[in-house]
Every structure is written in C-alpha cells, then in structure tokens.
C-alpha cells in the first residue's frame, strides 16, 4: 500500500442539531483510534470519512487521495471512496446468505482493484463453515467476522471500524481483537477505529485521537 503517504489527514466540522462536531488529526499507517465518550461525535466523524455525512467544512485525505475538500468543491460519493466500513451493528443484509453478503461488494469492485478472494477471506476470518447460513442465525461474534469479511472483499483502500466489539461478550471480544490486530499487522491497510474504551484502544492503536471535551 501507499506506505509513505499520510494514511489519514482529516480536518472536519459539522453542526448536527445543537451539537458541533469537530475533528482534526493525521496519522501515518497502522490503526488510528478516535477515543471519546459516547455522544462525542466519533461515529459522525467516521461517517464523514466514509462519505455518508457531508461536513460543513474541512478536508479529508486518505492514503494520499483527497476524498472531500469544501474549498476545492471535491466530494467523492460514498460508493466511490472504497472504504471498508464495519458498522457497530454489523448491518448484514438479512435477505442474503452469508456467502452473498460477503460477495456483495466484491461483485461491484473493479477486478483490478480486488486484492482478496472469497477463499482467502473465509480462511483469514475462520468463517468458511458459515457460508450457507442466514445472518439471523449467526452469533454476535460470527456476524461481526462476516461483516469484516464483507468489508475486506469490497476491495477497500482503508478500513473504518466503528466499535466493532461493543455488542460482544468478553470471550468474543478477544477473538475479534485478535482479528483486528492481524488486519493491522498483516494487511497494512490504514484503519480508522472508533471506541469509547481506553483499554481496547491502548492495545490496538498506533495513534490515539481524543474526540470531544
């Protein structure tokens, strides 16, 4: 990957009701964690990086590519940003089996951009035995691994992980944390990670960005 370029270079602000959300940070590679209490706007910042929420002002650059710049009138649509977004609530498509969930983004990616196939993803995440299951039959940890696989297979340039451990019991948390460490160390993909848990962030992050207060 673009190892020398800044992985994240973000400066955004956005008014949401009576909340004013601002964030300004940059980091080089590894896992960048936005740490702050719930309600501080961490997820909003991540949505702005993903292109799901438009900042009132600012600039978003990831891996040397400008995704948003209000002065230069650049606003790349979410579907072209190639963000691998893993949501807190996994958001698997309930009407598709695990296999079709995993392949949803893969099928839409340009073949030259793909860097992982279904076999590699299922082996990496240990989910080969789940391929024919419906999402509603998965445990929290299984659903989260499938969600990570779906994001990886969509040929992302970077990953956005929003409290991926929040809905899991302690044993599953450790399992997913190990997966995230491998994403960070093996794939060398820039990761933007959102959490309110300091211990979790200190174990995983290479750069910590406090948000709120």
């Amino acid at each position, binding site marked *: 990957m673009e190892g020398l370029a800044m992985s994240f270079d973000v400066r955004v602000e956005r008014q949401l009701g009576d909340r004013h959300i601002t964030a300004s940070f940059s980091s080089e590679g590894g896992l960048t964690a936005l740490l702050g209490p719930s309600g501080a706007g961490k997820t909003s910042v991540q949505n702005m990086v993903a*292109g*799901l929420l438009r900042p009132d002002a600012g600039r978003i650059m990831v891996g040397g590519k400008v995704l948003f710049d209000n002065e230069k009138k650049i606003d790349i649509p979410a579907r072209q940003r190639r963000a691998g*977004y893993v949501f807190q609530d996994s958001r698997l498509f*309930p*009407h598709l089996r695990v296999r079709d969930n995993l392949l*949803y983004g893969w099928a*839409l990616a340009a073949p030259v951009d793909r860097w992982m196939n279904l076999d590699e993803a299922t082996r990496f995440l240990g989910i080969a035995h789940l391929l024919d299951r419906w999402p*509603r039959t998965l445990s929290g940890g299984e659903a989260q691994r499938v969600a990570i696989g779906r994001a990886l297979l969509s040929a992302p340039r970077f990953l956005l992980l929003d409290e991926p451990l929040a809905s899991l019991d302690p044993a599953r948390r450790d399992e997913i944390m190990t997966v995230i460490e491998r994403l960070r160390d093996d794939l060398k993909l820039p990761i933007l990670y959102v959490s309110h848990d300091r211990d979790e962030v200190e174990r995983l992050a290479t750069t910590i960005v406090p948000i709120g207060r």
Partner: protein
Amino acid sequence: MAITPEEWEVIALSLKVSGVAVAGSLPIAFGLAWLLARRRFPGRILVDALVHLPLVLPPVVTGWLLLLAFGNTGPAGRWFSETLGITFMFRWTGAALAAAIMALPLMVRAMRLSIEAVDQRLEQAAETLGASRARIFSTITLPLALPGLLAGMVLGFARSLGEFGATITFVSNIPGETRTLPIAIYSALQMPGSEADVARLSLIAVALSLAALVASEVLVRRAGHGRAGHVL
C-alpha cells in the same frame, strides 16, 4: 349447487377486472408509497389525503366523480379515448378503473409501511460497498419491501373483488360487461325466489377471498428468505 354458465362468466369477469385493476395501479401505488415513505416535499400532506380519499368518501360519490372525469365527455375520458382508444363508460375497463381507485389507498398504505420498515442503514452499508442508487434499490430496498408489496397487492385484489358502489354508479350493471360478483349478488337479491343463487354466489365470493389470502401468505413466506413474514 352446480355453477351455471352465467355464474362462470361473472367469476371470470370479476377476476379479470380485479387483476387488471391491481396490475394497472401497482406502479402508481408503489410510486406514491415510495414518495410518501421517503421524500419530504411541499404538498405531501395533500397527496397523502388525496390517496386516502376513496377510503372515506361514499363510494357513490367516487363513482360520480369518475363519471364526470372519465365519462365519454369528461376531460380524462376524452383523452383516453382519443390517444389510447380506451373508453371506460359502461365497459369492464371502467369497472377495473373504479376498482383500482378504490383499492389504491389500501395498496399504498401496505406498501408505504413496508418501505418505511426497510432499514436505511442497510442501504448506507450497500452504498459504502460500492452500490449505485439503482442497485441499492433493486438488491436491498425492493427485496426487503417485497412481503409488504405482495400484501398490498393481495389487499388490493381482495378489495377490487368486493368493489360495488363506485362500480355500479360509474359503469352500471351490464351482464357480461360490468356485472361483477357483488353486483350479480345484488341483482339476484332484487329478484324474488333467488335465495339459492344469492347463497351460491356469496359462497363463491368467500372462497375467492379466502384463496387470495392463502395464496398471499404462501407468497410472502417464500419471499421471506428465512425471515418471518405475515400479510395481515
């Protein structure tokens, strides 16, 4: 209790009228349901009220309004007959139009609820995975709303089968052309000594309505993809 040829004609006509009514109003009902569920625009409350009007208006008034608009001298009636060659007055097409108008509120309601029930966060997830708006619609929104769409169609079909007031006002009671099942029952009731006919036709109406509901339940289950789903 054998069904007479005249009664078969009534049944076939009723099914044709209801089928055409539902098929014809489906795109309009779905479009309206989509607008009301997802878009905020000026006049939205008025559109909502107009869609629901046939539900609360006396059917005879709806029939009379249809006569004014879609009669042979009405503006809509003239347009249809001149550009498409379709006339409605005293024709089965008019019965289908009346049934469609009366079924529209039920169809829009069911479809709107099902579109509103689609989790928009799933659509966002699809967007981050690279899906265009058209693709999100066809692969996420539509399949997830499908049970509600089917429910809306079945409700509309059942409502069309039962449509009476607006139909008889607009297209009258012509055997073989506009005499649908409820109108045939009404006609039989007017004639002394035809209690058996009334009973037979009523039984047929019950059977048809029941069959529609069962068919829809089966369809909804099949569309449910392992999720629970119910029509009503």
